[in-house]
């Protein structure tokens, strides 16, 4: 039997209402033996060999943070690119400063160009937004380099602009490019379906095995630095599972990876395809055969209702939008219902991507129908994202036993823009309506959908509890969570949404010894300072993993 290690701390915030505050936690192997004080756990310590480890004596121990919805593969594509965002990003290898203003944006690109060692390596910069950076054109980017391909990708992913060297690198005939209705060769601009044409050439480079592996290694560091010990890959295999799976295993199933990944595959191929129910079930069940220690498929699947929130393709109910808005369905409503029924009747737990209130409505209409046909308790049907919703939908979620996993960063990054250009103040200030969810006791987690928001749980909790927009406005004070609710949304409730509440999410005897070690106490610093709390590191399955400071 392994020796017991007792970690003492300034405070152990267990997130268990029965014993919320403690000063010591005893761990054996990957398991918590007891939480309490050195005195209270004496019977264990007298009966078994143990050591007292006081390295956290000045710190605060919390349950390991959980992000139930992020996208490792998307992150692997994006993280090797250079971030040039208007908002700050904290990355393990770099604090990305806020870049605002046209000249500042160009200066940033020039600086990156100078720093790059290989003169031929394409410069991919992500984060351009005309509101902050002004328009950039092919000519503008020729001013950065005439020899190195320079590609500037929009923060919301739907447009990119390239210089002459990129066109040459692509080998794209000018006249051929010009034919495309969503490509403007004179401006060097590829948008919407025109992006496919650009990535036809880029993918050889951006998805090349070495670069993808480098991206996953960066993702590994990002997840650790955020203080996570569990994440959900909420669309496992989003590009191509057979390409991604070996890369994920190689990059993440390592002794020094301090987190686990719950793999939630799409219930059906994203773009459609065969839908014979039995085959879908067989496929979802069969995926579990490949499970490793850290990467696990289980009885959760993902469905998609309407289009994305950053892409502006969500389906809005009345009264629609200020601008000429066109929502899209990712799955036809009839197919959505049919596939949901297939998995519901097999006992699966279903997560539904819903961005707009009409998307939420489709998910809830479907859930209500399935409950009528074949009632289930404890089904964990979860609405994911929850950008725009109505209060009545929240009440209906409570009635039907649904959960919520909310992208709260929408309020911070898009709150002002959607107030002014799309939804008006009333609905923009009530995006991601956490307060109503809490008032109806709907189990509610927050997530980042990384790379849609920074993979920093304390940052998510900060937005959840303050609803401060990037311009500094409080967006919808009544929809804020309390500090405690916000901390639950990245621990206990996130574990519940992932169906892992018996193993993780709080600190109590019998659970996994997953901790996030904070250098300040969230309950002392208060909601407005949550995102500033320094993280010492984590303990994953009983083993400490300090975060190495930036070089």
């Amino acid at each position, binding site marked *: 039997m392994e020796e017991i290690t007792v970690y003492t701390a300034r405070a152990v915030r267990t997130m268990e209402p029965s014993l919320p505050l403690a000063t010591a936690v005893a761990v054996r192997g990957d398991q918590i033996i007891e939480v309490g004080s050195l005195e209270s756990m004496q019977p264990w310590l007298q009966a078994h060999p143990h050591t007292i480890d006081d390295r956290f004596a000045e710190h605060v121990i919390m349950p390991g943070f959980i992000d139930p919805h992020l996208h490792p593969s998307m992150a692997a594509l994006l993280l090797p690119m250079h971030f040039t965002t208007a908002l700050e990003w904290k990355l393990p290898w770099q604090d990305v400063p806020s870049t605002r203003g046209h000249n500042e944006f160009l200066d940033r690109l020039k600086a990156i160009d100078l720093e790059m060692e290989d003169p031929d390596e394409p410069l991919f910069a992500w984060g351009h937004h005309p509101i902050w950076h002004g328009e950039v054109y092919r000519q503008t980017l020729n001013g950065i380099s005439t020899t190195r391909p320079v590609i500037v990708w929009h923060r919301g992913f739907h447009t990119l602009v390239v210089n002459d060297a990129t066109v040459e690198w692509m080998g794209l005939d000018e006249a051929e490019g010009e034919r*495309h209705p969503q490509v403007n060769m004179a401006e060097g601009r590829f948008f919407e379906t025109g992006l496919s044409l650009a990535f036809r050439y880029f993918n050889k480079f951006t998805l090349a095995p070495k670069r993808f592996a480098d991206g996953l290694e960066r993702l590994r560091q990002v997840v650790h630095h955020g203080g996570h010990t569990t994440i959900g890959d909420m669309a496992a295999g989003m590009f191509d599972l057979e390409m991604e799976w070996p890369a994920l295993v190689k990059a993440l199933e390592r002794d020094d990876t301090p987190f686990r990944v719950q793999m939630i595959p799409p219930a*059906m191929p994203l773009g*459609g395809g065969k839908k014979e129910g039995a085959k879908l079930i067989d496929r979802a069940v069969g995926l579990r055969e490949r499970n490793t220690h850290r990467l696990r498929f289980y009885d959760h699947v993902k469905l998609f209702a309407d289009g994305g929130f950053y892409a502006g393709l969500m389906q809005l109910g009345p009264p629609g939008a200020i601008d000429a808005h066109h929502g899209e369905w*990712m799955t036809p409503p009839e197919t959505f219902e049919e596939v949901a029924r297939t998995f519901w009747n097999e006992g699966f737990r279903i997560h539904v991507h819903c961005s707009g209130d*009409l998307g939420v409505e489709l998910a809830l209409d479907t859930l209500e129908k399935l409950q009528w046909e074949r009632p289930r308790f404890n089904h964990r049907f979860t609405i994911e994202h929850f950008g725009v919703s109505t209060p009545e939908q929240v009440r209906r979620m409570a009635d039907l036993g649904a959960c919520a996993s909310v992208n709260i960063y929408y309020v911070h990054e898009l709150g002002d823009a959607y107030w002014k250009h799309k939804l008006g103040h009333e609905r923009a200030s009530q995006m991601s309506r956490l307060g109503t969810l809490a008032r109806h006791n709907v189990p509610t987690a927050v997530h980042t959908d990384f790379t849609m928001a920074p993979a920093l749980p304390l940052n998510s909790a900060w937005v959840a509890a303050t609803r401060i927009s990037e311009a500094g406005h409080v967006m919808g004070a009544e929809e804020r969570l309390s500090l405690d609710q916000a901390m639950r949304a990245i621990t206990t409730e996130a574990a519940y949404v992932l169906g892992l509440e018996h193993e993780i999410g709080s600190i109590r005897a019998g659970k996994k010894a997953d901790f996030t070690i904070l250098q300040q106490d969230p309950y002392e610093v208060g909601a407005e300072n949550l995102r500033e709390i320094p993280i010492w590191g984590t303990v994953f399955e009983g083993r400490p993993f300090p975060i190495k400071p930036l070089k």
Partner: protein
Amino acid sequence: MPSTAARIPVTVIGGYLGAGKTTLINHLLAGGHGRRLAVLVNDFGAIDIDAKLIAAHDGDTISLANGCVCCTIADALGDALDKVLAMPAAPDQIVIEASGVANPAKIAMYGQGWPGLRLDGIVTVVDGESVRARADDKFVAATVRQQLAAADLLVLHKTDLLAEEQQTAVRHWLRQQAPGTRLLAASFGDLPAAVLLGQGSFSSRQYDDLAAHDIYRTASFQFSGPFDRECLAARIKAWPAGVLRAKGLVYLDDDPGHAHILQLVGRRYSLEQGPAWNGETPASRIVVIGTDPDIDPKWLRGSLLQNRQ
């Protein structure tokens, strides 16, 4: 850069789930139109190709006895198009079955912009029984209306299930939704390839499948004098709604060295530079297909030349 003539034409078949797009495509694949088709299916159903036509299965690709291929595309339409373009024997035409919730105009952008391809046109298939209810449905109203608006040709399908007065009412309604869009009726996908996909060449052999449909008429026209670009466009745009398609090689006075390729699908009209005449005596040749009872060679000649001879 490939000339217009060398690009493979792409026809997009759109329409809501259950409108009968696959039935239409099966009918096309079984037809004796002599063209090699590549069909890309992007719908949420299985590839439901008529078993009698299938020669071999290979993963997501189905080879058909008549030399055509079918494949499913999950998301990556561009990849699927590249695979088709890389086939040892390129197909004569690509048909994309759009997803039931797609805006076919968006899919059509691939035809307009993908290297090696050109857009033939957008055909939206309409379930005559359900389209009006769907156009008011709380979830899909906007999607269905967008699909109607995107069409170059509307196919009112499943007419066998519609009583005469129902059919009249839905036709009337469709004309209001998509004013000026050419409208055809069909049941069980029974539409000639020449109408759906266009005339394969100028030889009348290609229209054999038209003979079985007495409502379709064709006419062709030849003329050795040059046309004025603007004048020709104005005359073609004045054609009645019963003209569904036209195709032609045109001799233009502002570029007498090159043939120009004329394409008309519904109201979608294009005239692009084609190959040089290369010693051949320049002359214009145009064929039309439509349902207007006036379509005949005399009418066609008159409409194009008017007071010229």
